[in-house]
Protein backbone atom coordinates (compact mmCIF):
# COMPACT_ATOMS: atom_id res chain seq x y z
CA UNK A 1 0.00 0.00 0.00
CA UNK A 2 1.22 3.45 -0.90
CA UNK A 3 -0.19 6.46 0.84
CA UNK A 4 0.23 10.10 -0.17
CA UNK A 5 -0.41 12.40 2.79
CA UNK A 6 -1.09 16.04 1.92
CA UNK A 7 1.81 16.16 -0.46
CA UNK A 8 2.93 19.33 -2.25
CA UNK A 9 5.80 20.01 -4.58
CA UNK A 10 7.14 23.35 -5.67
CA UNK A 11 10.07 23.27 -8.07
CA UNK A 12 13.15 25.41 -7.62
CA UNK A 13 11.92 27.78 -10.31
CA UNK A 14 8.73 28.43 -8.32
CA UNK A 15 6.35 26.27 -10.36
CA UNK A 16 3.79 24.54 -8.18
CA UNK A 17 3.55 21.01 -9.62
CA UNK A 18 1.55 19.28 -6.89
CA UNK A 19 -0.76 20.96 -4.42
CA UNK A 20 -1.93 19.18 -1.28
CA UNK A 21 -2.40 15.74 -2.77
CA UNK A 22 -3.68 12.80 -0.76
CA UNK A 23 -4.35 9.29 -2.07
CA UNK A 24 -4.27 5.72 -0.91
CA UNK A 25 -3.05 3.17 -3.42
CA UNK A 26 -4.08 -0.35 -2.43
CA UNK A 27 -1.68 -3.26 -2.86
CA UNK A 28 -1.77 -5.67 -5.79
CA UNK A 29 -3.80 -3.34 -7.97
CA UNK A 30 -3.02 -1.24 -11.00
CA UNK A 31 -3.62 2.43 -10.35
CA UNK A 32 -3.42 4.76 -13.30
CA UNK A 33 -2.73 8.44 -12.83
CA UNK A 34 -4.02 10.17 -15.91
CA UNK A 35 -4.06 13.79 -16.95
CA UNK A 36 -2.82 16.25 -19.51
CA UNK A 37 0.85 17.07 -19.65
CA UNK A 38 1.95 19.35 -16.86
CA UNK A 39 -0.70 18.15 -14.40
CA UNK A 40 1.92 16.80 -12.02
CA UNK A 41 1.25 13.10 -12.56
CA UNK A 42 4.86 12.23 -13.33
CA UNK A 43 6.05 14.24 -10.34
CA UNK A 44 3.69 12.20 -8.15
CA UNK A 45 5.13 8.98 -9.54
CA UNK A 46 8.70 10.09 -8.95
CA UNK A 47 8.02 10.89 -5.34
CA UNK A 48 7.43 7.21 -4.66
CA UNK A 49 11.04 6.24 -5.33
CA UNK A 50 12.42 9.57 -4.14
CA UNK A 51 13.56 10.75 -7.55
CA UNK A 52 11.69 13.84 -6.43
CA UNK A 53 11.21 14.96 -2.87
CA UNK A 54 7.95 16.60 -1.81
CA UNK A 55 8.30 20.08 -0.40
CA UNK A 56 5.40 19.36 1.98
CA UNK A 57 3.63 16.29 3.25
CA UNK A 58 4.81 12.69 3.34
CA UNK A 59 4.55 9.42 1.49
CA UNK A 60 4.28 6.07 3.22
CA UNK A 61 4.81 2.62 1.84
CA UNK A 62 3.15 -0.04 3.99
CA UNK A 63 3.01 2.47 6.81
CA UNK A 64 6.67 3.47 6.64
CA UNK A 65 7.54 7.08 5.81
CA UNK A 66 9.95 6.85 2.87
CA UNK A 67 11.65 10.11 3.79
CA UNK A 68 13.62 8.06 6.29
CA UNK A 69 14.68 5.39 3.81
CA UNK A 70 17.98 5.55 1.91
CA UNK A 71 16.99 6.53 -1.64
CA UNK A 72 19.27 3.97 -3.30
CA UNK A 73 17.96 1.11 -1.17
CA UNK A 74 14.40 2.31 -1.75
CA UNK A 75 14.83 2.45 -5.52
CA UNK A 76 16.31 -1.02 -5.64
CA UNK A 77 13.18 -2.51 -4.16
CA UNK A 78 10.85 -0.59 -6.46
CA UNK A 79 10.62 -1.47 -10.14
CA UNK A 80 10.81 1.46 -12.54
CA UNK A 81 9.91 1.57 -16.21
CA UNK A 82 10.12 4.74 -18.24
CA UNK A 83 9.43 6.00 -21.73
CA UNK A 84 12.28 5.31 -24.16
CA UNK A 85 13.22 2.41 -21.88
CA UNK A 86 16.28 4.17 -20.40
CA UNK A 87 18.33 1.03 -21.00
CA UNK A 88 22.11 1.15 -20.78
CA UNK A 89 23.27 1.24 -24.39
CA UNK A 90 26.57 -0.54 -23.68
CA UNK A 91 24.98 -3.50 -21.93
CA UNK A 92 23.29 -6.49 -23.55
CA UNK A 93 19.66 -7.36 -22.99
CA UNK A 94 20.40 -9.82 -20.19
CA UNK A 95 22.92 -7.50 -18.56
CA UNK A 96 20.36 -4.70 -18.63
CA UNK A 97 17.62 -6.85 -17.14
CA UNK A 98 19.89 -8.07 -14.37
CA UNK A 99 21.40 -4.66 -13.60
CA UNK A 100 20.04 -4.35 -10.09
CA UNK A 101 20.53 -7.99 -9.03
CA UNK A 102 24.13 -7.70 -10.27
CA UNK A 103 24.60 -4.50 -8.27
CA UNK A 104 23.37 -6.42 -5.27
CA UNK A 105 26.10 -9.00 -5.78
CA UNK A 106 24.39 -11.73 -7.75
CA UNK A 107 26.86 -13.90 -9.70
CA UNK A 108 27.12 -13.70 -13.45
CA UNK A 109 25.63 -17.07 -14.31
CA UNK A 110 22.79 -16.69 -11.88
CA UNK A 111 22.04 -13.18 -13.11
CA UNK A 112 21.92 -14.38 -16.68
CA UNK A 113 19.59 -17.24 -15.80
CA UNK A 114 17.33 -14.81 -13.97
CA UNK A 115 17.37 -12.43 -16.93
CA UNK A 116 16.40 -15.28 -19.24
CA UNK A 117 13.44 -16.11 -17.01
CA UNK A 118 12.38 -12.49 -17.02
CA UNK A 119 12.56 -12.48 -20.80
CA UNK A 120 10.07 -15.33 -20.83
CA UNK A 121 7.82 -13.42 -18.45
CA UNK A 122 7.65 -10.37 -20.70
CA UNK A 123 7.40 -12.38 -23.90
CA UNK A 124 10.84 -11.78 -25.36
CA UNK A 125 12.59 -14.39 -27.49
CA UNK A 126 15.57 -15.77 -25.63
CA UNK A 127 17.56 -15.47 -28.85
CA UNK A 128 17.64 -11.70 -28.28
CA UNK A 129 19.56 -12.11 -25.02
CA UNK A 130 22.93 -10.91 -26.34
CA UNK A 131 21.65 -8.01 -28.41
CA UNK A 132 22.33 -4.42 -27.48
CA UNK A 133 19.40 -2.02 -27.00
CA UNK A 134 20.17 -0.22 -30.25
CA UNK A 135 19.66 -3.51 -32.07
CA UNK A 136 16.10 -3.89 -30.76
CA UNK A 137 12.81 -2.44 -31.95
CA UNK A 138 11.08 0.14 -29.78
CA UNK A 139 8.57 -2.43 -28.53
CA UNK A 140 11.31 -4.92 -27.67
CA UNK A 141 13.20 -2.23 -25.78
CA UNK A 142 10.13 -1.50 -23.70
CA UNK A 143 9.73 -5.18 -22.92
CA UNK A 144 13.33 -5.25 -21.73
CA UNK A 145 12.53 -2.18 -19.63
CA UNK A 146 9.59 -3.99 -18.03
CA UNK A 147 11.71 -7.10 -17.46
CA UNK A 148 14.35 -4.96 -15.76
CA UNK A 149 11.69 -3.40 -13.58
CA UNK A 150 10.49 -6.84 -12.51
CA UNK A 151 13.91 -8.46 -12.10
CA UNK A 152 14.18 -7.93 -8.34
CA UNK A 153 10.61 -9.15 -7.88
CA UNK A 154 9.58 -5.84 -6.34
CA UNK A 155 6.20 -5.35 -4.72
CA UNK A 156 5.80 -2.02 -6.43
CA UNK A 157 6.24 -1.22 -10.10
CA UNK A 158 6.30 2.40 -11.24
CA UNK A 159 5.54 2.95 -14.91
CA UNK A 160 6.08 6.41 -16.37
CA UNK A 161 4.30 6.55 -19.74
CA UNK A 162 6.12 3.35 -20.65
CA UNK A 163 4.33 2.85 -23.93
CA UNK A 164 4.19 6.48 -25.00
CA UNK A 165 6.87 6.28 -27.67
CA UNK A 166 5.85 3.18 -29.59
CA UNK A 167 3.43 2.94 -32.48
CA UNK A 168 -0.25 2.15 -31.79
CA UNK A 169 -0.14 -1.50 -32.84
CA UNK A 170 2.88 -2.28 -30.69
CA UNK A 171 1.37 -0.24 -27.87
CA UNK A 172 -1.78 -2.31 -27.75
CA UNK A 173 0.35 -5.45 -27.86
CA UNK A 174 2.38 -4.22 -24.89
CA UNK A 175 -0.77 -3.22 -23.03
CA UNK A 176 -2.25 -6.70 -23.40
CA UNK A 177 1.05 -8.18 -22.33
CA UNK A 178 1.07 -6.00 -19.21
CA UNK A 179 -2.48 -7.10 -18.35
CA UNK A 180 -1.38 -10.72 -18.66
CA UNK A 181 1.74 -10.19 -16.56
CA UNK A 182 -0.23 -8.37 -13.90
CA UNK A 183 -2.85 -11.13 -13.75
CA UNK A 184 0.00 -13.56 -13.02
CA UNK A 185 2.12 -11.47 -10.67
CA UNK A 186 -0.34 -9.15 -8.94
CA UNK A 187 2.09 -6.26 -8.31
CA UNK A 188 1.15 -2.86 -7.00
CA UNK A 189 1.46 -0.90 -10.20
CA UNK A 190 1.40 2.88 -10.38
CA UNK A 191 1.02 3.78 -14.02
CA UNK A 192 1.19 7.27 -15.47
CA UNK A 193 -0.26 8.18 -18.84
CA UNK A 194 -2.03 10.97 -20.65
CA UNK A 195 -4.03 8.49 -22.72
CA UNK A 196 -7.49 7.91 -21.21
CA UNK A 197 -8.05 4.79 -23.32
CA UNK A 198 -4.87 3.29 -21.93
CA UNK A 199 -5.93 4.30 -18.42
CA UNK A 200 -9.33 2.62 -18.74
CA UNK A 201 -7.81 -0.48 -20.29
CA UNK A 202 -5.13 -1.06 -17.68
CA UNK A 203 -6.40 0.52 -14.50
CA UNK A 204 -8.23 -1.28 -11.73
CA UNK A 205 -8.61 2.22 -10.47
CA UNK A 206 -8.14 5.42 -12.44
CA UNK A 207 -7.26 8.78 -10.94
CA UNK A 208 -7.98 11.73 -13.21
CA UNK A 209 -5.87 14.75 -12.44
CA UNK A 210 -6.27 18.43 -13.20
CA UNK A 211 -3.56 21.09 -12.89
CA UNK A 212 -1.32 20.85 -9.80
CA UNK A 213 -2.43 17.23 -9.38
CA UNK A 214 -5.90 18.11 -8.13
CA UNK A 215 -7.96 14.92 -8.18
CA UNK A 216 -10.89 15.47 -10.52
CA UNK A 217 -12.25 12.00 -9.95
CA UNK A 218 -11.08 8.58 -8.87
CA UNK A 219 -12.75 5.24 -9.29
CA UNK A 220 -13.04 2.24 -11.53
CA UNK A 221 -13.34 2.97 -15.25
CA UNK A 222 -17.00 1.94 -15.09
CA UNK A 223 -17.74 4.32 -12.23
CA UNK A 224 -16.10 7.19 -13.99
CA UNK A 225 -17.84 6.58 -17.30
CA UNK A 226 -21.18 5.99 -15.66
CA UNK A 227 -21.06 9.03 -13.50
CA UNK A 228 -18.50 11.66 -14.44
CA UNK A 229 -17.97 13.87 -11.41
CA UNK A 230 -17.69 17.07 -13.37
CA UNK A 231 -17.83 18.65 -16.76
CA UNK A 232 -14.02 18.45 -16.83
CA UNK A 233 -14.06 14.70 -16.35
CA UNK A 234 -16.86 14.14 -18.83
CA UNK A 235 -14.93 16.16 -21.35
CA UNK A 236 -11.65 14.41 -20.53
CA UNK A 237 -13.02 10.89 -20.86
CA UNK A 238 -15.16 11.89 -23.79
CA UNK A 239 -18.25 10.20 -22.35
CA UNK A 240 -20.74 12.43 -24.13
CA UNK A 241 -19.29 12.49 -27.57
CA UNK A 242 -17.15 10.77 -30.14
CA UNK A 243 -16.27 7.16 -29.97
CA UNK A 244 -17.20 6.61 -26.35
CA UNK A 245 -20.79 7.67 -26.86
CA UNK A 246 -22.31 4.51 -28.31
CA UNK A 247 -25.84 4.01 -29.50
CA UNK A 248 -27.61 0.94 -30.78
CA UNK A 249 -28.74 0.65 -34.36
CA UNK A 250 -32.03 -1.15 -34.52
CA UNK A 251 -32.21 -4.25 -36.61
CA UNK A 252 -35.33 -5.79 -37.96
CA UNK A 253 -34.41 -9.45 -38.01
CA UNK A 254 -34.93 -9.86 -34.27
CA UNK A 255 -31.55 -11.43 -33.67
CA UNK A 256 -29.65 -10.83 -30.44
CA UNK A 257 -26.95 -8.85 -32.14
CA UNK A 258 -27.06 -5.12 -32.33
CA UNK A 259 -24.70 -2.84 -34.17
CA UNK A 260 -23.38 0.07 -32.10
CA UNK A 261 -22.45 3.41 -33.60
CA UNK A 262 -20.32 6.08 -31.95
CA UNK A 263 -21.07 9.75 -31.53
CA UNK A 264 -19.89 10.48 -35.04
CA UNK A 265 -22.21 7.89 -36.52
CA UNK A 266 -19.46 5.41 -37.32
CA UNK A 267 -20.07 1.71 -36.58
CA UNK A 268 -18.08 0.93 -33.45
CA UNK A 269 -18.88 -2.70 -32.67
CA UNK A 270 -21.54 -5.24 -31.99
CA UNK A 271 -23.61 -5.72 -28.85
CA UNK A 272 -24.77 -9.25 -28.23
CA UNK A 273 -27.39 -10.01 -25.63
CA UNK A 274 -27.46 -13.32 -23.83
CA UNK A 275 -30.75 -15.19 -23.57
CA UNK A 276 -31.27 -14.17 -19.95
CA UNK A 277 -30.59 -10.56 -20.72
CA UNK A 278 -33.01 -10.84 -23.58
CA UNK A 279 -35.67 -12.36 -21.32
CA UNK A 280 -35.50 -9.85 -18.48
CA UNK A 281 -34.43 -7.14 -20.81
CA UNK A 282 -34.17 -3.70 -19.44
CA UNK A 283 -33.20 -2.74 -22.91
CA UNK A 284 -36.51 -1.59 -24.18
CA UNK A 285 -36.23 -1.71 -27.90
CA UNK A 286 -38.70 0.31 -29.80
CA UNK A 287 -40.35 -1.06 -32.85
CA UNK A 288 -37.57 -1.04 -35.39
CA UNK A 289 -37.58 1.24 -38.33
CA UNK A 290 -35.39 0.31 -41.19
CA UNK A 291 -31.99 2.00 -41.20
CA UNK A 292 -32.82 4.33 -38.40
CA UNK A 293 -30.77 5.00 -35.34
CA UNK A 294 -32.57 4.64 -32.09
CA UNK A 295 -31.72 6.30 -28.86
CA UNK A 296 -32.97 3.36 -26.91
CA UNK A 297 -29.96 3.28 -24.72
CA UNK A 298 -26.56 4.82 -24.68
CA UNK A 299 -23.97 2.24 -23.90
CA UNK A 300 -20.72 3.24 -22.41
CA UNK A 301 -18.83 0.06 -22.27
CA UNK A 302 -15.15 -0.44 -22.55
CA UNK A 303 -15.35 -4.11 -23.48
CA UNK A 304 -17.44 -3.31 -26.50
CA UNK A 305 -15.00 -0.83 -27.82
CA UNK A 306 -11.87 -2.54 -26.62
CA UNK A 307 -11.12 -3.54 -30.15
CA UNK A 308 -10.01 -0.06 -31.08
CA UNK A 309 -8.21 0.73 -27.87
Amino acid at each position, binding site marked *: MIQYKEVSKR*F*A*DGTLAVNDFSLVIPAHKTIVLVGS*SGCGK*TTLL*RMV*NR*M*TTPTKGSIEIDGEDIAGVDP*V*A*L*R*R*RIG*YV*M*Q*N*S*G*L*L*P*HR*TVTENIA*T*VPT*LQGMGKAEARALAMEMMDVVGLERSLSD*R*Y*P*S*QLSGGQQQRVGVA*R*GLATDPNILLMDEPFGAVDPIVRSELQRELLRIQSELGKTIVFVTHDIDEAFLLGDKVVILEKTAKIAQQGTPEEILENPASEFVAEFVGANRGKRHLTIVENDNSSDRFVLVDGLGRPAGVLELSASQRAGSDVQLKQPKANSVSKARSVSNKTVQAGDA
Partner: protein
Amino acid sequence: MDFIIQALGYIFDPVNYLGENAILPRLADHLIYTGLSLFIALVVAIPLGLFIGHTGRGKNFAVAATSSFRAVPTFGLLLFIVLLNGLGLWPLVAVLVILAVPPLLAGIYSGIQAVSRSTIYSARAIGMTEFQILSKVEVPLAIPLMLGGLRNATLQVIATATIAAYVGLGGLGRFIIEGLALHNFVLALVGALLVMMLALVIDLSLAGIQKLVTPPGVATVLTRKATDKQPKILAKIAQEREG
Protein backbone atom coordinates in the same frame (compact mmCIF):
# COMPACT_ATOMS: atom_id res chain seq x y z
CA MET B 1 62.96 15.15 -53.21
CA ASP B 2 66.67 14.43 -53.10
CA PHE B 3 66.72 15.87 -49.62
CA ILE B 4 63.97 13.55 -48.51
CA ILE B 5 65.82 10.53 -49.82
CA GLN B 6 69.01 11.63 -48.12
CA ALA B 7 67.14 12.22 -44.89
CA LEU B 8 65.49 8.81 -45.07
CA GLY B 9 68.92 7.30 -45.75
CA TYR B 10 70.15 8.92 -42.56
CA ILE B 11 67.18 7.66 -40.58
CA PHE B 12 67.49 4.09 -41.76
CA ASP B 13 71.24 3.90 -41.28
CA PRO B 14 71.79 2.07 -37.98
CA VAL B 15 75.05 3.97 -37.55
CA ASN B 16 72.98 6.97 -36.50
CA TYR B 17 70.94 5.13 -33.90
CA LEU B 18 73.22 5.11 -30.90
CA GLY B 19 75.64 7.66 -29.57
CA GLU B 20 75.52 11.07 -27.98
CA ASN B 21 73.55 12.95 -30.62
CA ALA B 22 71.97 9.96 -32.26
CA ILE B 23 68.39 9.10 -32.97
CA LEU B 24 67.50 6.70 -30.18
CA PRO B 25 68.55 8.81 -27.18
CA ARG B 26 66.70 11.78 -28.59
CA LEU B 27 63.67 9.65 -29.30
CA ALA B 28 63.85 8.44 -25.71
CA ASP B 29 64.02 12.04 -24.47
CA HIS B 30 61.03 12.94 -26.58
CA LEU B 31 59.06 10.01 -25.24
CA ILE B 32 60.01 10.80 -21.65
CA TYR B 33 58.89 14.45 -21.97
CA THR B 34 55.66 13.36 -23.62
CA GLY B 35 54.88 10.47 -21.31
CA LEU B 36 55.71 12.31 -18.12
CA SER B 37 53.69 15.38 -19.05
CA LEU B 38 50.69 13.39 -20.19
CA PHE B 39 50.78 11.34 -17.01
CA ILE B 40 50.74 14.41 -14.80
CA ALA B 41 48.12 16.08 -16.98
CA LEU B 42 45.91 13.00 -16.71
CA VAL B 43 46.25 12.95 -12.93
CA VAL B 44 45.00 16.54 -12.91
CA ALA B 45 42.39 16.29 -15.65
CA ILE B 46 40.65 13.01 -14.85
CA PRO B 47 39.19 13.87 -11.43
CA LEU B 48 38.44 17.42 -12.50
CA GLY B 49 36.82 16.34 -15.77
CA LEU B 50 34.77 13.62 -14.10
CA PHE B 51 33.58 16.09 -11.51
CA ILE B 52 32.58 18.69 -14.09
CA GLY B 53 31.02 16.09 -16.35
CA HIS B 54 29.02 14.34 -13.66
CA THR B 55 27.80 17.36 -11.75
CA GLY B 56 27.73 19.88 -14.58
CA ARG B 57 29.27 22.36 -12.16
CA GLY B 58 31.88 24.70 -13.57
CA LYS B 59 31.02 23.56 -17.07
CA ASN B 60 30.64 27.03 -18.53
CA PHE B 61 33.94 28.03 -17.06
CA ALA B 62 35.62 24.91 -18.44
CA VAL B 63 34.18 25.46 -21.91
CA ALA B 64 35.27 29.07 -21.97
CA ALA B 65 38.71 28.24 -20.61
CA THR B 66 39.41 25.39 -23.01
CA SER B 67 38.26 27.25 -26.08
CA SER B 68 40.01 30.50 -25.28
CA PHE B 69 43.17 28.56 -24.47
CA ARG B 70 43.43 27.78 -28.16
CA ALA B 71 44.41 31.37 -28.74
CA VAL B 72 47.47 31.28 -26.48
CA PRO B 73 50.65 30.98 -28.54
CA THR B 74 52.31 27.93 -26.98
CA PHE B 75 55.72 28.87 -28.31
CA GLY B 76 55.67 32.15 -26.42
CA LEU B 77 54.41 30.46 -23.28
CA LEU B 78 57.20 27.89 -23.46
CA LEU B 79 59.94 30.47 -23.88
CA PHE B 80 58.50 32.64 -21.13
CA ILE B 81 58.33 29.87 -18.55
CA VAL B 82 61.77 28.51 -19.41
CA LEU B 83 63.20 32.00 -19.23
CA LEU B 84 61.78 32.55 -15.76
CA ASN B 85 62.50 29.10 -14.33
CA GLY B 86 65.68 28.18 -16.06
CA LEU B 87 66.47 25.34 -18.37
CA GLY B 88 65.57 21.85 -17.30
CA LEU B 89 63.15 19.01 -17.43
CA TRP B 90 60.59 20.40 -15.01
CA PRO B 91 59.93 23.82 -16.54
CA LEU B 92 59.37 22.06 -19.85
CA VAL B 93 57.10 19.46 -18.28
CA ALA B 94 55.18 22.25 -16.56
CA VAL B 95 54.49 23.92 -19.91
CA LEU B 96 53.51 20.64 -21.54
CA VAL B 97 51.14 19.84 -18.68
CA ILE B 98 49.51 23.25 -19.00
CA LEU B 99 49.00 22.56 -22.69
CA ALA B 100 47.72 19.01 -22.25
CA VAL B 101 45.14 19.64 -19.54
CA PRO B 102 42.57 21.65 -21.56
CA PRO B 103 42.07 19.11 -24.36
CA LEU B 104 42.00 16.25 -21.86
CA LEU B 105 39.47 18.09 -19.74
CA ALA B 106 37.35 18.89 -22.77
CA GLY B 107 37.36 15.23 -23.83
CA ILE B 108 36.38 13.98 -20.40
CA TYR B 109 33.61 16.38 -19.53
CA SER B 110 32.09 16.59 -22.96
CA GLY B 111 32.25 12.80 -23.20
CA ILE B 112 30.19 12.54 -20.06
CA GLN B 113 27.89 15.37 -21.08
CA ALA B 114 27.20 13.55 -24.34
CA VAL B 115 25.75 10.55 -22.51
CA SER B 116 21.99 10.68 -22.86
CA ARG B 117 20.36 12.32 -19.85
CA SER B 118 17.56 9.76 -19.92
CA THR B 119 20.06 6.90 -19.61
CA ILE B 120 21.58 8.52 -16.55
CA TYR B 121 18.17 9.34 -15.11
CA SER B 122 16.99 5.79 -15.45
CA ALA B 123 20.20 4.42 -13.93
CA ARG B 124 19.54 6.58 -10.90
CA ALA B 125 15.87 5.59 -10.80
CA ILE B 126 16.60 1.87 -10.64
CA GLY B 127 18.89 2.41 -7.69
CA MET B 128 22.45 3.05 -8.80
CA THR B 129 24.52 5.16 -6.44
CA GLU B 130 26.12 8.31 -7.86
CA PHE B 131 29.48 6.53 -7.97
CA GLN B 132 27.97 3.57 -9.79
CA ILE B 133 26.35 5.91 -12.31
CA LEU B 134 29.73 7.48 -12.92
CA SER B 135 31.75 4.28 -13.09
CA LYS B 136 29.29 1.92 -14.75
CA VAL B 137 27.36 4.24 -17.05
CA GLU B 138 29.03 7.58 -17.71
CA VAL B 139 32.66 6.57 -17.98
CA PRO B 140 32.19 3.51 -20.22
CA LEU B 141 29.98 5.51 -22.56
CA ALA B 142 32.31 8.51 -22.55
CA ILE B 143 35.52 6.60 -23.19
CA PRO B 144 35.63 7.13 -26.96
CA LEU B 145 35.37 10.91 -26.59
CA MET B 146 37.79 10.85 -23.68
CA LEU B 147 40.34 9.12 -25.85
CA GLY B 148 39.68 11.73 -28.53
CA GLY B 149 40.78 14.30 -25.97
CA LEU B 150 43.84 12.21 -25.16
CA ARG B 151 44.77 12.08 -28.84
CA ASN B 152 44.59 15.85 -29.12
CA ALA B 153 46.57 16.36 -25.96
CA THR B 154 49.23 13.91 -27.15
CA LEU B 155 49.64 15.65 -30.49
CA GLN B 156 49.87 18.98 -28.73
CA VAL B 157 52.55 17.71 -26.36
CA ILE B 158 54.62 15.97 -29.05
CA ALA B 159 54.57 19.11 -31.16
CA THR B 160 55.53 21.43 -28.34
CA ALA B 161 58.23 19.07 -27.09
CA THR B 162 59.71 19.40 -30.58
CA ILE B 163 59.96 23.16 -30.24
CA ALA B 164 61.60 22.70 -26.85
CA ALA B 165 64.84 21.90 -28.65
CA TYR B 166 65.11 25.60 -29.34
CA VAL B 167 65.83 26.28 -25.68
CA GLY B 168 68.50 23.59 -25.65
CA LEU B 169 66.49 20.62 -24.42
CA GLY B 170 66.74 17.18 -26.01
CA GLY B 171 64.23 15.37 -28.08
CA LEU B 172 63.84 14.91 -31.80
CA GLY B 173 63.48 18.64 -32.33
CA ARG B 174 67.25 18.93 -31.78
CA PHE B 175 67.85 17.64 -35.29
CA ILE B 176 65.64 20.35 -36.70
CA ILE B 177 67.12 23.18 -34.65
CA GLU B 178 70.68 22.04 -35.29
CA GLY B 179 69.94 21.57 -38.97
CA LEU B 180 68.54 25.09 -39.20
CA ALA B 181 71.48 26.56 -37.31
CA LEU B 182 74.06 24.73 -39.41
CA HIS B 183 72.15 25.31 -42.65
CA ASN B 184 72.09 21.54 -42.92
CA PHE B 185 68.71 21.02 -44.51
CA VAL B 186 68.98 17.24 -44.57
CA LEU B 187 69.56 17.13 -40.83
CA ALA B 188 66.50 19.33 -40.24
CA LEU B 189 64.48 17.01 -42.45
CA VAL B 190 65.69 14.02 -40.45
CA GLY B 191 64.22 15.58 -37.35
CA ALA B 192 61.02 16.59 -39.09
CA LEU B 193 60.44 13.14 -40.54
CA LEU B 194 61.19 11.43 -37.23
CA VAL B 195 58.76 13.67 -35.37
CA MET B 196 56.11 13.07 -37.99
CA MET B 197 56.53 9.33 -37.74
CA LEU B 198 56.39 9.46 -33.96
CA ALA B 199 53.23 11.55 -33.96
CA LEU B 200 51.64 9.36 -36.58
CA VAL B 201 52.46 6.07 -34.89
CA ILE B 202 51.23 7.25 -31.51
CA ASP B 203 48.09 8.84 -32.91
CA LEU B 204 47.20 5.79 -34.97
CA SER B 205 47.75 3.51 -31.98
CA LEU B 206 45.49 5.68 -29.88
CA ALA B 207 42.93 5.69 -32.69
CA GLY B 208 43.13 1.90 -32.72
CA ILE B 209 42.60 1.73 -28.98
CA GLN B 210 39.71 4.14 -29.36
CA LYS B 211 38.01 1.80 -31.83
CA LEU B 212 38.73 -1.17 -29.63
CA VAL B 213 37.25 0.22 -26.44
CA THR B 214 34.15 1.78 -27.97
CA PRO B 215 31.43 -0.25 -26.29
CA PRO B 216 29.56 -2.35 -28.84
CA GLY B 217 26.13 -1.10 -29.71
CA VAL B 218 26.80 2.50 -28.79
CA ALA B 219 28.39 3.92 -31.92
CA THR B 220 25.30 6.01 -32.58
CA VAL B 221 24.50 6.82 -28.99
CA LEU B 222 27.33 9.24 -28.64
CA THR B 223 26.30 11.63 -31.33
CA ARG B 224 25.20 15.04 -30.23
CA LYS B 225 21.84 14.51 -31.90
CA ALA B 226 21.01 11.75 -29.48
CA THR B 227 21.28 14.10 -26.55
CA ASP B 228 19.21 16.80 -28.17
CA LYS B 229 16.18 14.59 -28.50
CA GLN B 230 15.42 14.34 -24.84
CA PRO B 231 11.88 14.32 -23.63
CA LYS B 232 10.73 17.58 -22.11
CA ILE B 233 10.27 15.88 -18.78
CA LEU B 234 14.01 15.60 -18.47
CA ALA B 235 14.40 19.33 -18.63
CA LYS B 236 12.34 19.43 -15.49
CA ILE B 237 14.58 16.87 -13.88
CA ALA B 238 17.64 18.84 -14.80
CA GLN B 239 16.00 21.90 -13.36
CA GLU B 240 15.35 20.14 -10.14
CA ARG B 241 18.82 18.73 -9.82
CA GLU B 242 20.23 22.18 -10.12
CA GLY B 243 17.77 23.51 -7.61
